[in-house]
């Protein structure tokens, strides 16, 4: 079977399945075959089951044959980050502590995708419990960046982003707590949307930091990003923080251009330490959008520079509580010990990796009696200030344009022993997470070394459509063949 259409858009693939030009089964087989050739190089998946994928595809074909009305995602392969619960399919969150764990239920987004007729390619690799920016914190193995196998794909949703970039699946779901969808999307040269907090139900997303976690789509086009977002967004009774305001984005809205839109650039935040090629790309994109009728202006986010400090109090605090359930009592790994306290200590000491243990310790400390006011409570106050910064900036501008990351993808192993350097890679993605506003990373060209550059658009709550529209405007004139990782295209059989 040829790889002819693996780099087609999800939209085109879905259309061809709905029109019975191809069967969902054929589509699935083509992607599975390709994955067989790429998986070893990239190590994108923690769990794949060819038979299950094919069974899902033939079920879709049967539904189509029965005349069921399916969505534009019918028969479209979708990769799922391994922190999304899938009924009776391993869900480990990249952790040893959940090795062999089979959830008895589907996450809300998984349910929605099943109804829509999507076909799951498998569970993608990620940093353990989504804690990390390189996928090197996976307890199983690191994933490679398809553009340069010596580099990280970003993280924590590195498996999902790499899989989409490499054409193993046209769509993937990731989760974003401080940039975990956007940063790997930028590193892998694909689109990654972190929806408004509350736009997508978190039911069945294994929690890292509950007040920040959002599930988001990863795709190779703006329209595909919208397509996947449209299936997963909206109110779910099982998540009290999910909101009815989250509405599907009409695809035609993406084609309306940027004329009259005001785009703010937060020069005070961007400051020093940003790769010059990324800064050049920012200027290039701003100019191109200005030419299309957008108004470019400066905005200020004065408190955003405290984002990393704030984030690394709030997220670990919530994580220390969210991860308390992995105690060896009911499921997952349990160390053999003589008494209860030892069982807790050894189970968690061995079951969790270094970064997870580090964050649990940080969070436990931040919430401790006597420290709560100085750390957690103070961080929550700063968070409010950051949210206000965005509110104000977004009264002047319709969207904010800034880099997704300060650097292009770094080398595997480069930052593993320097957690602070790793944390600082999230400086541009964390502010929108703290503010709860939507943010989209879109591919904005390549460096001279042929590494992807991602830029970020941040918008008002529930105005995902605006972000997708701006990115679509840029994409419609600048999408090029460079978006296919050469390493892989060269090896195509």
């Amino acid at each position, binding site marked *: 079977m040829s790889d002819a259409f693996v780099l087609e858009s999800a939209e085109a693939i879905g259309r061809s399945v709905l029109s019975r030009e191809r069967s969902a089964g054929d589509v699935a087989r083509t992607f599975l075959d390709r994955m067989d050739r790429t998986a070893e190089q990239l190590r994108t998946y923690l769990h794949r089951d060819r038979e299950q994928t094919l069974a899902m595809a033939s079920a879709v074909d049967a539904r189509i044959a029965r005349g069921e009305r399916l969505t534009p995602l019918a028969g479209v392969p979708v990769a799922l980050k391994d922190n999304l*619960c899938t009924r009776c399919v391993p869900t480990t969150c990249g952790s040893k502590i959940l090795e062999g764990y089979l959830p008895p239920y589907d996450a809300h987004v998984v349910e929605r995708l099943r109804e829509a007729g999507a076909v799951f390619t498998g569970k993608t690799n990620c940093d353990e419990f989504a804690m990390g920016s390189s996928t090197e914190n996976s307890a199983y193995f690191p994933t490679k960046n398809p553009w340069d196998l010596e580099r990280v794909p970003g993280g924590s949703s590195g498996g999902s982003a790499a899989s989409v970039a490499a054409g193993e699946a046209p769509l993937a779901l990731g989760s974003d707590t401080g940039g975990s969808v956007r940063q790997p999307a930028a590193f892998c040269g694909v689109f990654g949307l972190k929806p408004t907090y509350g736009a997508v139900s978190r039911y069945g997303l294994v929690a890292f930091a509950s007040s920040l976690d959002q599930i988001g789509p990863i795709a190779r086009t703006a329209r595909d990003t919208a397509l996947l977002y449209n299936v997963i967004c909206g109110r779910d009774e099982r998540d009290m923080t999910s909101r009815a305001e989250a509405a599907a984005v009409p695809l035609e809205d993406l084609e309306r251009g940027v004329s009259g839109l005001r785009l703010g650039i937060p020069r005070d935040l961007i400051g020093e330490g940003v790769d010059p090629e990324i800064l050049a790309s920012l200027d290039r994109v701003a100019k191109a959008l200005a030419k299309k009728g957008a108004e470019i202006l400066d905005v200020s986010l004065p408190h955003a520079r405290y984002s990393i400090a704030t984030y690394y109090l709030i997220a670990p605090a919530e994580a220390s509580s969210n991860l308390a*359930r992995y105690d060896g009592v009911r499921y997952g790994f349990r160390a053999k010990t003589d008494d*209860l306290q030892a069982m807790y200590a050894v189970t968690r000491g061995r079951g969790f990796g270094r970064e997870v243990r580090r964050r649990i310790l940080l969070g436990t400390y931040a919430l401790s009696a006597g420290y709560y006011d100085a750390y957690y409570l103070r961080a929550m106050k700063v968070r409010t200030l950051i949210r206000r910064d965005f509110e104000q900036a977004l009264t002047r501008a319709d969207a904010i344009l800034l880099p997704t990351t300060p650097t292009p993808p770094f080398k595997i192993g480069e930052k593993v022993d320097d957690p602070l350097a790793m944390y600082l890679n999230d400086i541009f993605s964390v502010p929108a997470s703290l503010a709860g506003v939507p943010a989209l990373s879109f591919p904005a060209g390549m460096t001279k070394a042929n590494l992807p550059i991602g830029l970020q658009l941040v918008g008002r709550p529930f105005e995902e459509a605006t972000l997708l529209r701006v990115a679509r405007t840029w994409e419609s004139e600048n999408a090029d063949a460079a978006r296919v990782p050469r390493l892989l295209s060269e090896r195509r059989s």
Partner: protein
Amino acid sequence: MSATGPATESTAGAGARQDRYETVVGLEVHAQLRTESKIFCGCSTKFGARPNTQVCPVCLGLPGVLPVLNERAVRFAVMTGLAVGAKVAERSVFARKNYFYPDLPKGYQISQYDRPLCTGGGIDIRSGGGWKRIGLVRIHLEEDAGKSLHPEGREGVTTTRVDLNRSGVPLIEIVSEPDIRSGTEAYDYLIRLKQILMYLDVCDGNMEEGSLRCDANVSVRLKGQAAFGTKAEIKNMNSFRNVERAIAFETDRQIRIVESGGRVAQETLLWNADKGIAETMRSKEEAHDYRYFPEPDLLTLDLDPAWVEAVRSELPELPHQIRDRLTRDFGIPEYDAEVLTETRSLATYYEEVARRSGNPKLASNWIMTEVNGIRNKEGQSIEEFPIRPDRLGDLIKMIATERISGKIGKQVFEMMLTRPEGPDELVKAHGLLPIDDEGSLRALAREVIAANPGPAAEVRAGKERTFAFLVGQAMKQSRGRAHPEKIQEALRKELGAG
């Protein structure tokens, strides 16, 4: 550790020394709310099911699940707050209380911390001859944990098993001010609190099934001293009587420590009901740091004041309100009213009997002595008591209107316990109607005089005291049916005639 043992020394002077101190007690009561489903998921709350059969991913704390607040639980908690005069917060906040325990599946309990649902209010208890108000600090909503069981496994090794059916059952925690001064007051407080909860029908009040649980904070201080002593927390008291006993024990223990020049340690004690002592569970150093923080998976709990007012307007009548009404409308003593309002259904029962009988005080006497006598003996609730209130009302009316005597009334009452007939039918069928016509009474008098010639002669000779004997004989002869005044008249007439 000698100070923790029960008093053994000669206590000749102990009473006097004890009198110089007062106990300061605050109670924390956990009450399970009788909602159909759990507080954060749809699982049943029914007690007694096979272990781990009323569970779902949410109350099992599986990865990825989220809590969804049960509105009914909020309503029940608000009802309780309103019933005790607490202030219901327009905005309250759920918080996570973090600690590890095998029966706590998420590693934290969702509770409320610095912004509880209700604050203030109080409960009136009996103290001395009057009433005393025990203030409330707060009432907050939280979820229950599961239960750990420790069956003995192979080779005598104790194993631990966890039943999570109870995990996520809604609880309210009711925290009193340290206004309680004795085990007796604590007992009365608990009785009255339970009574309110049951009138509201928000808790079944069953301590054996754990629907109601109580911890006590106990300290002592010299009378007149303003500062509190160091408190100890006592847990694991499984009945109100045990709370009373534990407080008495702990008071005595602390006074003896202070008297012997020691210092009371801040610690948590477990009440051992079999031994009648409280034993150290953990010291202050071992106390948990619960690391409370606002629960990010739930929104703040914002209550519309109009909704709260609607809940208030739908509150049922409360024990003290009914008590006041009964004393006012029926003119019965406060004591009676209190006994009769023990449960809502007893009060309803009484009201019907009182109305039907036309004699509320007599109705009260009958229920407090006869009905409650039987119920206590048989362990029956008023619902289980075999005589329905209309029938009892009819019986009491017969007594009140002197159609039958009280004594006959009791015979009829005994029959009614096992028979379906009403009092009127029973009286007729068993020939129990009183003898009050002149002819029959005169005949009865003649019989008695004839059968007791000696006493009759004595009466005629002027020995008045023997007359009572003859009356007694007449009553006995008639099995109590003779009209008590009229038979005396008849006897006088017959004695005079003889």
